[in-house]
């Protein structure tokens, strides 16, 4: 919006506030309140409209499609009720890919959090050039997925990759990293490369831990591991919980490293190694390789519900463990 448009919006708002139904009985104060209310909805409306049109409508559309045989081409697609859902329940590919996605989340999320937290503790120490180390460790998290994927593809290349170079130098056999069954390890390592993200967020949390707590613990004779476990981790737990939830959601949606890892020319769905054929890859295959929009929409909705359940369960099981630091000053 330009300045002019913006001020006309403001002018219009002002004029309606003046000439509009002024509730004289309640005095000018409540008309001010009414003006604030209208202004609030004027400000948040782009998000509301966008959320309805670009999130709710597509999700509803997908729900409708999931009850049909729509494929985008054939004109006589029809309603099949729960047929797609019945089919996916009976398809072993669905279950296998779901298992792989779950395994990927269960392995990669805790590892990333441990790595990120470890890095944060490391660069929170008073060392020289701390800022430089932080920047360098965070840098990989800024590398776009395509760059990261191509970097790891070259790093783990069977002939020209550095990893096999080190292995053969040490007297081991070269490994076909980008094929089954090793591709899954490359996948996890690609994700771990971005642990700088969690490092930065944990670092902000670490710096919020009051100094006095650490000093009190040291006076009581607690070692550094004990202090970390009993003071740092509990105080960081809300941040860690948030990272776990967003990490699980992100890992289930991950498709880029799976598509990129294969040796083949351009990557793509059909060349994903079996061990990296996760649920989301299955959805992509059904969507784009086969054009089965109806069936793929059912798969998407099942995943959506599963994510909701998983998120709920994570919150449920951590409710007793996560420690929320309540600032007594903030409460009146």
């Amino acid at each position, binding site marked *: 919006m330009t300045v002019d448009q913006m001020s006309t919006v*403001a002018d219009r708002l002002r004029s309606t506030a003046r000439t509009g139904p002024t509730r004289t009985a309640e005095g000018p104060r409540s008309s001010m309140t009414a003006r604030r209310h209208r202004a609030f909805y004027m400000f948040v409306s782009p998000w509301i409209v966008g959320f309805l049109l670009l999130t709710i409508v597509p999700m509803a559309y997908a729900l409708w499609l999931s009850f049909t045989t729509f494929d*985008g081409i054939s004109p006589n697609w029809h309603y099949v009720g729960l047929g797609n859902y019945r089919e996916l329940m009976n398809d072993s590919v669905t279950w296998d890919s779901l298992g792989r996605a779950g395994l990927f989340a269960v392995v990669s999320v805790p590892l990333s959090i441990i790595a990120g937290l470890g890095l944060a503790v490391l660069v929170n120490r008073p060392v020289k050039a701390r800022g430089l*180390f932080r920047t360098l460790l965070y840098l990989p998290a800024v590398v776009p997925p395509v760059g990261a994927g191509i970097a790891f593809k070259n790093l783990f290349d069977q002939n020209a990759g550095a990893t096999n170079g080190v292995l053969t130098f040490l007297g081991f056999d070269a490994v076909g990293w980008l094929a089954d069954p090793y591709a899954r390890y490359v996948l996890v390592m690609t994700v771990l490369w971005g642990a700088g993200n969690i490092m930065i967020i944990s670092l902000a949390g670490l710096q919020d831990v009051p100094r006095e707590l650490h000093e009190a613990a040291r006076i009581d004779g607690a070692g550094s591991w004990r202090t970390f476990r009993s003071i740092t981790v509990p105080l960081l737990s*809300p941040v860690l919980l948030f990272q776990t939830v967003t990490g699980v959601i992100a890992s289930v949606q991950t498709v880029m490293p799976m598509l990129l890892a294969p040796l083949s020319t351009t990557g793509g769905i059909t060349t994903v190694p079996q061990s990296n054929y996760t649920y989301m890859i299955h959805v992509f295959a059904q969507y784009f390789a086969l054009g089965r*929009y109806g069936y793929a929409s059912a798969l998407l909705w099942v995943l959506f519900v599963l994510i909701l359940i998983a998120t709920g369960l994570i919150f449920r099981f951590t409710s007793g463990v996560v420690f929320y630091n309540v600032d007594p000053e903030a409460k009146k």
Partner: protein
Amino acid sequence: MTATSLPPKSPVHVRIRVNRIVLYTVLVVVTGLFLGPFGWLVLTGLKSPGELASAPVHWVPADFQWHNFADAFDLIDFLGYARNSLIIAFVYGGLVTLSSAWVGYGFARLSAPGKKVLFGILIGSMMLPQMITLLPTYLIFAKLGMVDTYWPWVLWGLSSAPYLVFLFRQFFAGLPRELEEAAIVDGCGYGQIFWRIFLPQSWPVLSASFVIAFTWTWGDYIAPQLLLSTDKSTLAVAVMSTYVSSAGTPITNLQAAASVMYVVPILLIFLIAQRGFVAGMSTSGLK
């Protein structure tokens, strides 16, 4: 440290020294491991095809093939794809920054019945799996004839991003009350207050938001791959899929060189805008 009062060769002193050495060694090794993949990408981009094909690894190219970078530039319409990426990133980054600031102002400084619920939905929607909504959105865009245009990015930009809205809300909520009070007494509209008083105060957040949104769009592969045809597509898609010989085999060294040229601008932007970027990241910790 109390260590200064101890005699220089005391066991405590030695232990602290050893600890320091171990700490620095770990730091340097870990940092090396984290930079390794990128370093290897650069090295791969400087090798000849022969060096990449033969089995014992050539750690360092015999001759640095600097011309690979020029070749990668010429083999495909690199500049054209980069321009497409820039257009999308600027359009989306600019629009989403303004719209998110606008919405963030509403959540920070105004109130109305239903605000709490709406804010809850906003925060919850940050956790919505975007890949799940993207696929049906793609079908809808296809129906509306918006495939192969940049309209989807305009719409996404106008509708603000929950994460950036939250960023702006946190910033605006921290500004003093007096800022708009005088203006309200003067009968100034909220739109004007936002535009004349709040926006000029928020350059740090505006630039952080723009950099974050720019980086998202520059790095995004799936949306342009789905929505755009090859010649309208972005550098991410081109780097990924166009470095293929006529025989259908990948041209590894040129692809690596192109990836370096694709990634380095983002790294530079990050290094320049680092402070705001990291502040934005930390806010997302949502304590």
